[in-house]
């Protein structure tokens, strides 16, 4: 680390002579040790998944959820310092509810990502605070259905509102990843945490930008990717946690929910099988090497 000893990395909000904020870079280091988190943007919904490392046998299995619901249609998962993640989620919920009280409608995923990006960025500006030690993935589905204004009475004309334009942009999936600097991008497939490199490589194989991956198939892929990304820390046990949001006519009816246990188990079973398959291949590969 070239930064150490120069003194420019001891305080947040301070630029080094070459224009870097080292405290933010160090916060990223905290993220890089966190459990792998991924998000996938499918044709008809989004999926969030995370690898929850079991740090103690005494932890209650199935408890301690890491994926949070922020508004009915939006979920958040983060890698890095877990308490920072909870702070982030709590802010996200405040933003979603403040939007609702102003506009009487759910916040679009994009707008939420923007507001949270600004919030996280503010923690890079002052020496009296430290940056967030997390990278968060925010995913949701902006409804494509006709929605009422919260609290409205009546439905307007029975024949429906006139003059609608066919194919006018309506809702859809949204997936964003927010870094400790406050920087955020929209993603087809997002990965962060310890196994992000492996996870990214797998995500890239999926051709997500074509927008053809079905939600159920995405669940299987997400589970498999978490298992692949876990390979490097094989010695540690982990729990897979997954959630999804579909369109209004999909399985979750536009809501952010935990993936049902039956589907989760099926996805895990397939993921393990796929891993075994890979092990055999690599096993034979080593055999060949030995022959050489």
């Amino acid at each position, binding site marked *: 680390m070239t930064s150490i000893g120069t003194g420019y990395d001891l305080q947040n909000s301070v630029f080094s002579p070459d224009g870097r904020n080292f405290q933010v870079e160090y916060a990223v280091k905290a993220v890089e040790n966190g459990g792998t988190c991924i998000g996938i943007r499918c044709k008809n919904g989004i999926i969030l998944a995370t690898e929850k490392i079991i740090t103690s046998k005494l932890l209650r299995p199935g408890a301690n959820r890491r994926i949070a619901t922020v508004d009915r249609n939006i979920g958040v998962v983060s890698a890095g310092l877990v308490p920072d993640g909870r702070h982030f989620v709590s802010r996200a919920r405040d933003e979603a509810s403040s939007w609702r009280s102003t506009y009487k409608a759910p916040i679009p995923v994009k707008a939420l990502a923007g507001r949270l990006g600004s919030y996280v960025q503010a*923690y890079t500006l002052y020496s009296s605070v430290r940056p967030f030690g997390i990278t968060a993935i925010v995913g949701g589905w902006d409804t494509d259905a006709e929605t009422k204004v919260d609290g409205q009475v009546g439905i307007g004309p029975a024949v429906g509102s006139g003059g609608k334009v066919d194919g006018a942009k309506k809702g859809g999936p949204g997936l964003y990843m927010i870094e400790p600097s406050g920087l955020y991008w929209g993603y087809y497939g997002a990965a962060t945490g310890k196994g992000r490199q492996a996870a990214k490589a797998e995500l890239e194989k999926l051709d997500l930008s074509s927008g053809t991956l079905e939600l159920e198939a995405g669940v299987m892929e997400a589970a498999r990717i978490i298992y692949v990304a876990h390979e490097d820390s094989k010695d540690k046990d982990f729990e897979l946690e997954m959630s999804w949001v579909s369109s209004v006519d999909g399985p979750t009816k536009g809501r952010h929910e935990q993936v049902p246990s039956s589907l989760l188990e099926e996805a895990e079973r397939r993921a393990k099988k796929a891993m075994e398959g890979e092990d055999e291949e690599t096993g034979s590969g080593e055999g060949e090497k030995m022959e050489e």
Partner: protein
Amino acid sequence: MFRNNYDNDAVTFSPQGRIFQVEYASEAVKQGSVVVGIASKTHTVLVALKRNAEELSSYQKKIIGIDEHFGLALAGLASDARVLSNFMKRQALASKMTYGRPIPIERIVERIGDRAQTSTQVYTKRPYGVGLLVAGVDETGPHLFEFQPSGMTQEMVACAIGARSQMARTYLERHLDKFADSSRDELIKHGLLALKESLSQDKELTVDNASLGVTGVAKDGKRKIETFKLYDGPEIGPLLEAALETSEAAPAAEGGESMEVDT
């Protein structure tokens, strides 16, 4: 221990992404005397070893009842625990008034977790120097949570924190699969035995230095709660006797195993 440039406050990350002040706060937990918590399907129990400053002084309070349905055990700075427990008492009361039901254990633990997180991100504050085990029962059954100075909270089946707590944890891990179906009495025994593992050799559990809290689902009626009961002083005597009797009467297997652990 050596100082480094990155351990002055909680708002500075080290180049490895660590926050030393928070880690040091966790050390304060390890200075506190040991506390143990276990949850079964019907009950949760907290057990603590109390310390006295000198022979003639009183023993430090280790277990605090917060509301009828839950309490906590602390390890570390007792005054920090008092701040947190006062906060929890207020929150529990407010929740009861607003919603007309006991606050869910997870909810109250999240609240103190969020509060503790804030003090790891703002220069004007310092992290809490205390670890807590929060045990209680709510509409979804008995729960046990661990709280750390970092703001991390986790739901556990069993847990031990404080000085020499590793030995207690080893005991807990070894008996882990028995806890779920344990009766109230069995759970208390396990708690006391786990605590005993962590005692230094010249010490033993007495009515003076042991403290115990239990709550659970009451047998009669639906959703009935057994009020958080604190056993302190003479009241704990029979419980100690029952637990220690069985451990001594029990086959040497357990004693043998723990000796192995010691080596």
